């Protein structure tokens, strides 16, 4: 660890950095990577998306998407971060000087995601406490809108104290973990929270399965509608779900794999992480739909009649209502919101580490300085935008645009530049195969160079058209322009500004290992 950690002094230019931080071992890395991948999307997005897109039949495109895009791009992130041993900007710069800006674009995406993601965790923390008295009463929807004091689309500085306090606590906790570094902070936090999350969530799912109506819920989720497979929208939904759920293509997995020892297995741990992420989604699907089945049973209706089956409305409106109707609902509620909180927190710290690690690499900042300064900046912006009465709409729009435009664009650019422009695919393939017990071949190049980009470009174009033609969520155009397109444009501007800064630590004082001899064709 850099000695400048305590003083925060920047190392002079052209000085080699101290040895890179490392995970304590393979297990620490795997658990942390699972902690990052398993987040809110696993719990509140997958079940509803599967249900709306063909139920059981959705699992076919979902598994195909996992195998043809999710795992291959995950491997690509691992290869870039591990071979070039850097957070996104450093790793991309070492691959090609001008590619550094792509790394900073990913850092900016992480900034925007972190600031709203923390706000959702703050709500979950409040609701964890509210569970003990079932404080939301008979009308959880009104209760939630009162809790966040939801105002019309816009930007207000009217603070909501009920959100402000938990949000401050979340940020202090995140900064505290990050300040302890990779092995003592991030890894330790994951080693505590991931097993706890599994136990809490399994308890919840098993309890849910014994509720009356649970079987009807599982029927609704798993009954296959095979006609859905001819609908392109269903395939796009599957690729999107896999893509957003695995935390790929916005710097996290590059950063995490850069902290692995040089001699470390790459793809096989990647398979474990990818399948663990999907395993949790299947478990969440079973749990969530068993609960929805119970709700339909209690209300004498069917699941198709229920609203609010995913996202914020599932967690903070639909679920509280079910919890109130359940015997010992408080216990169930506490388990559910604690699960959301733990799954989300282990993702949040990975997102902010992308930012911290990048500044450590470029400016020679110490671990503590990066955590406090950069975590502090995120916290202040997060509090200004998301502890106010306008948070709900801003969050909704930033989330939609930064993911569907920013992250997808980042993935397309990464795949196309690495494989087609720089022609470094074979080098990365060699890197993965020579270090891993699960070798990758030309099929991997075809997936990251052809299949994944085609699906991603289709997703990107159709989403851009939708945003321009239909807008989003019935919100005014100026608001989408500022909060949605604005966050994407700011990410691009930020990327160029940060790329233009001088390196305080020489990025080129580096030799990639194992050495790769390009073929004649590649060398041209």
């Amino acid at each position: 660890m850099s000695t400048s950690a305590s003083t925060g002094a920047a190392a002079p230019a052209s000085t080699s950095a101290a040895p890179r931080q490392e995970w304590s071992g393979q297990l620490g890395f795997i658990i942390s990577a699972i902690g990052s991948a398993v987040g809110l999307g696993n719990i509140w997005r997958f079940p509803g998306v599967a249900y709306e897109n063909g139920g059981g039949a959705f699992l076919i495109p979902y598994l195909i998407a996992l195998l043809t895009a999710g795992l291959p791009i995950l491997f690509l992130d691992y290869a870039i971060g591990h071979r070039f041993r850097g957070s996104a900007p450093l790793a991309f710069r070492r691959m090609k000087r001008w590619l550094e800006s792509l790394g900073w674009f990913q850092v900016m995406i992480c900034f925007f995601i972190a600031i709203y993601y923390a706000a959702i965790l703050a709500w979950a923390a409040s609701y964890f406490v509210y569970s003990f008295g079932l404080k939301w009463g008979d009308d959880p929807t009104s209760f939630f809108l009162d809790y966040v004091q939801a105002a019309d689309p816009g930007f207000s500085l009217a603070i909501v104290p009920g959100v402000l306090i938990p949000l401050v606590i979340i940020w202090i906790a995140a900064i505290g973990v990050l300040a302890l570094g990779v092995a003592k902070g991030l890894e330790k936090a994951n080693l505590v929270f991931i097993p706890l999350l599994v136990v809490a969530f399994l308890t919840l799912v098993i309890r849910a399965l014994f509720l009356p109506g649970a079987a009807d819920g599982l029927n609704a989720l798993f009954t296959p509608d095979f006609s859905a497979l001819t609908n392109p929208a269903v395939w796009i939904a599957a690729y999107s779900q896999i893509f957003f759920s695995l935390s790929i293509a916005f710097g996290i997995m590059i950063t995490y794999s850069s902290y692995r020892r040089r001699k470390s297995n790459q793809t096989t741990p990647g398979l474990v992480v990818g399948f663990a992420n999907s395993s949790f989604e299947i478990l969440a699907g079973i749990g969530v739909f068993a609960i929805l089945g119970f709700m339909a049973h209690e209300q004498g209706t069917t699941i198709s009649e229920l609203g609010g089956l995913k996202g914020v409305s599932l967690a903070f409106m639909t679920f509280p209502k079910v919890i109130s109707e359940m015997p010992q609902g408080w216990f169930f509620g506490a388990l559910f919101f604690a699960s959301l909180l733990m799954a989300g927190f282990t993702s949040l710290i990975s997102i902010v580490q992308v930012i911290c690690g990048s500044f450590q690499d470029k400016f020679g900042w110490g671990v503590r300085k990066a955590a406090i300064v950069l975590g502090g900046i995120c916290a202040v912006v997060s509090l200004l935008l998301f502890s106010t009465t306008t948070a709900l709409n801003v969050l909704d729009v930033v989330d939609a645009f930064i993911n569907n435009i920013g992250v997808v664009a980042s993935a397309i650019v990464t795949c196309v530049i690495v494989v087609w422009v720089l022609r470094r695919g074979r080098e990365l393939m060699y890197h993965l195969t020579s270090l891993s017990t699960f070798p990758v071949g030309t099929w991997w190049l075809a997936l990251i160079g052809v299949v994944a980009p085609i699906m991603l470009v289709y997703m990107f174009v159709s989403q851009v058209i939708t945003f321009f033609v239909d807008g989003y969520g019935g919100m005014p155009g100026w608001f989408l322009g500022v909060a949605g397109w604005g966050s994407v444009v700011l990410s691009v501007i930020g990327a160029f500004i940060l790329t233009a800064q001088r390196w305080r630590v020489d990025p080129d004082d580096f030799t990639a290992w194992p050495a790769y001899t390009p073929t004649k064709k590649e060398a041209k």
Partner: protein
Amino acid sequence: MSASALVVMIVAMIIVWGGLVASAVLLARRPEVSAWPTPGPDDEEDMSFN
């Protein structure tokens, strides 16, 4: 539950949870490659240049 839903649920569990178990077993049996590429980084220093 209906038969089709039950079959789909079980198949999904076998593929996804089975995939997790299989990849974990694969990793446990062979945590590392049998031979690292040479010349390799010195384990003591672990190529400490960044």
